[in-house]
């Protein structure tokens, strides 16, 4: 056990995987210097420049080379630096990596992890702040993981590296410094299992990544008002834990899905639609989704803030659905 940050937890998991398996290696821009946020600090010194590879600024080739190396049996961890730059390599990820196993009738396996840091972070503005996890959840062949805590960033990265299919691994840039207890010997987690953050009988609040913390904050405030909010951290958007969510909604009769990404076409729509389809009869109030307006992320903080989903907004939504008796 040890107290470490979200960033250090992922570094520990990657280093452990590389020590255990010579097939695991990582590639990306400026990894030798520790990576732009420090997630690779000290790793080139330990594993050498052949397994912690500094690449040219060539996103299509960083992603494509990861795929080619995976097809040959190595297990690359591809660092895209910002999820926004992965948009320079969508053919390589979506047309090639996600489809190779199926298209080639099972001959190919793509054990590749694509790290894509997401989220609003200190006025990074429109081209450095996006959260497009919903895109990759829509693509057959891709596993999508969105860790929210140091322990999860350790366990889920280890699970992603162990997965024999391509995983889009989306860490949130605002969580790098989040501290927490991390048991590096914890039992491996199953990709697709959600995590119940709080227990509650009155409203189910589903979230992932950084917004889980806003949901937990809201739950604490609501608890003080006698409202029991059950916060569920999906951890994985594909596969996602429909069973836990449906079970919870059947108990509470109310669903709120909260995420940082744009609400329109966000993965919250998938969760809300699935609940409406399969637990519609248990709903005592309409489902509620909280996500960003369909505008762009501005540089000025007061404009950037207008797109945030906050604990207060989640709490208000909860009060609204709880206050509302079935029509």
């Amino acid at each position, binding site marked *: 056990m040890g107290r470490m940050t979200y960033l250090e937890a992922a570094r520990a998991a990657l280093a452990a995987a590389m020590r255990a398996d010579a097939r695991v290696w990582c590639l990306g821009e400026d990894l030798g210097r520790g990576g732009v946020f420090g997630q690779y600090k000290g790793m080139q010194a330990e594993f050498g420049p052949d397994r912690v590879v500094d690449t040219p600024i060539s996103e299509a080739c960083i992603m*494509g080379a990861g795929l*080619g190396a995976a*097809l040959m049996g*190595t297990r690359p961890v591809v660092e895209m630096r910002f999820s926004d730059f992965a948009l320079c390599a969508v053919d390589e990820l979506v047309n090639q990596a996600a489809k190779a196993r*199926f298209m080639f*009738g099972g001959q*190919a396996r793509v054990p590749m992890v694509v790290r894509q840091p997401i989220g609003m972070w200190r006025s990074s503005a429109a081209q450095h702040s996006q959260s497009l996890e919903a895109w990759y959840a829509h693509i*057959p062949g891709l596993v999508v993981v969105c860790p929210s805590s140091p322990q999860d960033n350790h366990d889920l990265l280890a699970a992603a590296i162990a*997965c024999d299919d391509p995983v889009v691994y989306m860490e949130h840039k605002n969580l790098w410094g989040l501290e927490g207890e991390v048991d590096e010997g914890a039992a491996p987690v199953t990709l697709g299992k959600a995590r119940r953050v709080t227990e509650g009988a009155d409203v189910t609040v589903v979230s992932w990544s950084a917004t889980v913390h806003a949901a937990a904050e809201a739950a604490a405030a609501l608890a003080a008002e006698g409202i029991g909010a059950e916060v569920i951290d999906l951890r994985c958007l594909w*596969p996602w834990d429909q069973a836990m969510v449906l079970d919870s909604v059947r108990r509470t009769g109310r669903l709120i899905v909260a995420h940082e990404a744009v609400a329109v076409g966000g993965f919250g729509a998938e969760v809300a639609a699935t609940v409406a389809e399969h637990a519609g009869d248990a709903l005592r109030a309409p489902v509620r989704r909280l996500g960003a307006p369909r505008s762009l992320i501005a540089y000025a903080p007061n404009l950037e803030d207008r797109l945030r989903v906050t604990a207060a907004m989640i709490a208000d939504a909860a009060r609204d659905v709880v206050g509302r008796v079935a029509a």
Partner: protein
Amino acid sequence: MLALMERIRAFEEQAILAAERKLVLGAIHPSIGQEGVAAGVVGALERTDALLSTHRGHGHTLAKGADARAMMRELLGRAGGCCGGKGGSMHIADFSVGMLGANGVVAANIVIAAGAAHAVKLRGETRVVACIFGDGAANRGTFLEGLNWARVFDLPLVFVCEDNRYSASTATVSVTGGEGPAARAASLGLPVTEVDGNDALATRAAAAEVVARVRAGGGPAYLHCRTYRQTGHTSADAAAYRPEGEAAAMATGDDPVARLRETLALAGEDGLEALHDAAQAEMRAALAEAEAAPWPDAASVYDDVQDVGSPALAAY
């Protein structure tokens, strides 16, 4: 070598026939006229070497050692196809012989090949990776990124440009600045070799030299093969965009199969006719067998998507 080229041509002829009979479902891009490059280049590779091909990859796949019957079944979308009927012509592959796939996206295979070679270097193997692409592919950004990567990491990778002058209905020179792909490869630090791709023996010699150099650790290299596709872009393309008589002239005057046959005949080889007949018979049988083969098991649509999660339609 002639046997292989006859087999490639026979396969393509049967594939075109199958397409005309609507047995082939999607589009196919025949490589008739480009057999010299397939036999010359791919023939210079070891079985354990890796190859990445294009949408026009039937010849490459056969040359790497794939089974023609399994390939024909794949073109007809049948069970027993080398990709289980899931890929078709543009995603034909046979990993058992190191053929890591055709590609439906022009020039996408160049950056994938860089990764395959990177893995070979990472593990200190003596394998070579070959990446074949068309003249049109040299105008996509992945050409620059892939060749630069191979040079920077000093990878065992042979880039082969199969220059048939056309990108679908566009004459490639009309949309290609500067001296063309070879000059670009040189600017990226790769040694360049150019050869008449329709001279199968010259192509084999050039390829063998380049592959040996690369295998010995000489770093990445570029081989430019001038050739010509005698059919349209696809089997259904009348190719009216080509100058009157150009295709006919190439088919008669510069046919790689005919040229090799003549050379071997001149050298006193006999039994050449038999190679042709055997190839025709083999591929006719392959088509007949494929035509009789069953469709893939419908449930296989959910196989090989990914291990976790269920691709099956939720209970909607």
